[in-house]
């Protein structure tokens, strides 16, 4: 689960990291009121779960109330990389001396966390990695030992801060930076994050070290250990994906018009690829998992067909442990009760496949075709989707 900037910053603040005073606003009036409380100038920032909002114009420095109102109206009307903007963060502006980059991220190759630091912050870190790999410090953190002091010292040394620079209370900026690195590690570990990124981490002209942005991803599998975040997860999910998850399905909406469902993530991905290779386009990724549960099939059909833009349905099952005849009975049960008015192509292979095909044939469901193999199933589904809508086979509208 990706957190919005303001939510990530509230975790930062709870972990002892310094963030700027800010208010969340859902309207121009709220933004103006927030600016009044915080004092001008302020920065108005789109709250979206995607990068690139700065380049898209989603971050604006405002010196007057009029500018706050105009910026808020503009930003709330934006769509950034497909994400609508429902709220903005109004944040105090500060004088920046240095911009740094600091992140801890889960690495597959290291099989654990990696701390990434760059003295060049505020820009796309992948670009820094390409242009000047030496500017990045990448330090694997042992998951059992945790972050070591020497690793923190390495980061502080790489930052090359002015040794004379100190915060308002006289604490050297170098020491403040070390504190930030340690606090971010604790937050990463204790909140089951897979990414905690601060870009930029700024050193202000008054010697403070402040998190100007936050990008936090929490491991979905660990949400049971974080009840507060779990509630956010359930509330924030897109409607169809949330419904699918509740039914125990893995579901991702795609752009095409051929509904796809199958058992196993790899099998479904493979089916989507074969549809594309045959000139068609899948409407979704839907994995019903193992077992022949009729209710999972029913939930999957409900979610897949709910947009009304699906013009054919392809069901691909490979029976390993799962018996194809039981899946077939589940399908018949669902399809005979549900009004599915697009062509349905079913492909059964593996455990009890012959029995499963017989069950489907006996049911004589209109619009249902049993394919002889994967290739034929894909061909029939693509042809079915391309066929002109007949009165009996297509949903109206």
């Amino acid at each position, binding site marked *: 689960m990706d957190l919005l900037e303001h939510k990530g910053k509230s975790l930062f603040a709870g972990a002892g990291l310094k963030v700027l005073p800010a208010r969340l606003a859902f309207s121009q009036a709220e933004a103006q009121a927030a600016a009044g409380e915080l004092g001008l100038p302020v920065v108005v920032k789109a709250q979206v779960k995607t990068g690139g909002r700065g380049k898209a114009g989603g971050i604006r420095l405002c010196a007057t109330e009029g500018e706050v109102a105009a910026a808020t109206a503009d930003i709330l009307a934006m769509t950034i990389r497909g994400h609508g903007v429902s709220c903005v963060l109004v944040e105090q502006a500060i004088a920046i001396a240095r911009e740094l980059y600091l992140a801890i991220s889960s690495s597959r190759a290291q099989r*654990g966390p990696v701390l990434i630091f760059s003295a060049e912050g505020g820009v796309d870190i992948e670009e820094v990695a390409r242009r000047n790999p030496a500017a990045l410090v990448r330090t694997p953190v042992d998951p059992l030992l945790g972050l070591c002091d020497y690793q923190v010292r390495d980061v502080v040394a790489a930052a090359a801060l002015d040794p004379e620079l100190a915060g308002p209370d006289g604490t050297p900026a170098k020491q403040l930076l070390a504190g930030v690195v340690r606090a971010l590690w604790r937050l990463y570990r204790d909140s089951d994050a897979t990414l905690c990124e601060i870009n930029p981490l700024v050193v202000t002209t008054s010697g403070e070290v402040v998190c100007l942005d936050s990008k936090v991803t929490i491991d979905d599998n660990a949400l049971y250990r974080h009840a507060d975040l779990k509630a956010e997860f359930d509330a924030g999910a897109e409607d169809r994906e949330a419904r699918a998850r509740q039914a125990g399905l893995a579901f991702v909406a795609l752009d095409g018009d051929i509904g796809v469902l199958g058992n196993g993530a790899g099998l479904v991905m*493979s089916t989507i690829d074969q549809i594309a290779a045959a000139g068609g386009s899948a409407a979704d990724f839907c994995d019903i998992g193992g077992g022949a549960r009729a209710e999972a099939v029913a939930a999957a059909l409900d979610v897949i067909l709910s947009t009304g833009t699906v013009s054919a349905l392809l069901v691909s099952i490979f029976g390993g442990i799962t018996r194809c005849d039981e899946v077939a009975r589940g399908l018949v049960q669902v399809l005979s009760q549900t009004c599915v008015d697009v062509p349905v192509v079913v492909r059964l292979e593996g455990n009890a496949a012959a029995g499963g095909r017989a069950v489907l044939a006996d049911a004589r469901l209109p619009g249902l075709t049993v394919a002889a193999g994967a290739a034929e199933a894909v061909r029939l589904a693509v042809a079915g989707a391309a066929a002109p809508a007949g009165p009996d086979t297509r949903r109206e509208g």
Partner: protein
Amino acid sequence: MAILIDERSRVLVQGITGREGALHAARMRAAGTDLVAGVSPGKGGQAVEGAPVYDAVAPAVAATGADVAVLFVPARFARDAMLEAADAGIRLVVCVTEGIPVRDMAEVTAHLSRRGTILVGPNGPGLITPRRCSAGIMPADVFAPGAVGLVSRSGTLTYEVVHELTQAGIGQSTVVGMGGDPIHGVGFLECLELFEADDETEAVVLIGEIGGNDEERAAEFVREHVSKPVVAYIAGFGAPPGKRMGHAGAIVEGSSGTAAEKKTALEAAGIPVASAPADVVPLLQARLERRPSP
């Protein structure tokens, strides 16, 4: 020889008194596995499938000489169960469980590698050496003994490809499902190294999917260290960026981890990539025929 497991493997099932544990213990036994013990805390003294049940792994190992542990344990208890197996001296831990937190897997893999314990999974079907030993949930009927090694990131897709191989008369030495999580035990590299050294394996099939760069690293490894024919299949060309496709590890992040990138890397290393699961068969046949006879 096969790799990782064979008829000499002595298998213990953690969580054997649960529904899944009992079901798959029976299936493993029917597939030729030497099932020697089960473990379920608080259920010691019972017997499941003729195997004595113990309260903990260490006494089970002491009494039976078990060297392989297969876990059917819920996600939130899986970390502890894997650590217990490793600390009891188990050689190979097989974890089928899906949904284990990333932090738990980072800790488990770090601990197991220090112990020298091999891990297969999690979030995968385990592994099988046909007719000799099954450690996991693979449907034994689909498999046949033979000389092709297979290692895969996906369960059902593995069965699909193996089904095609078996139908075409191509048997398998050992088939390993590494699992769909981003942090997992043995992967392409470890299995390729084992298959290369295995007398019974003549060719290797890799089944990959989007996410990470395991396939790219495998391509590099094959180029440098593998003399046996290798063919591959990759799923997920149609996956949109930023979306998890079922498996926790199946995600295109930024511009990296795409299927197209993996295909290019594999082909550049001389590994043909099948366009559909069934096409693995002719690719493999062509590569095997092209080999000079000994």
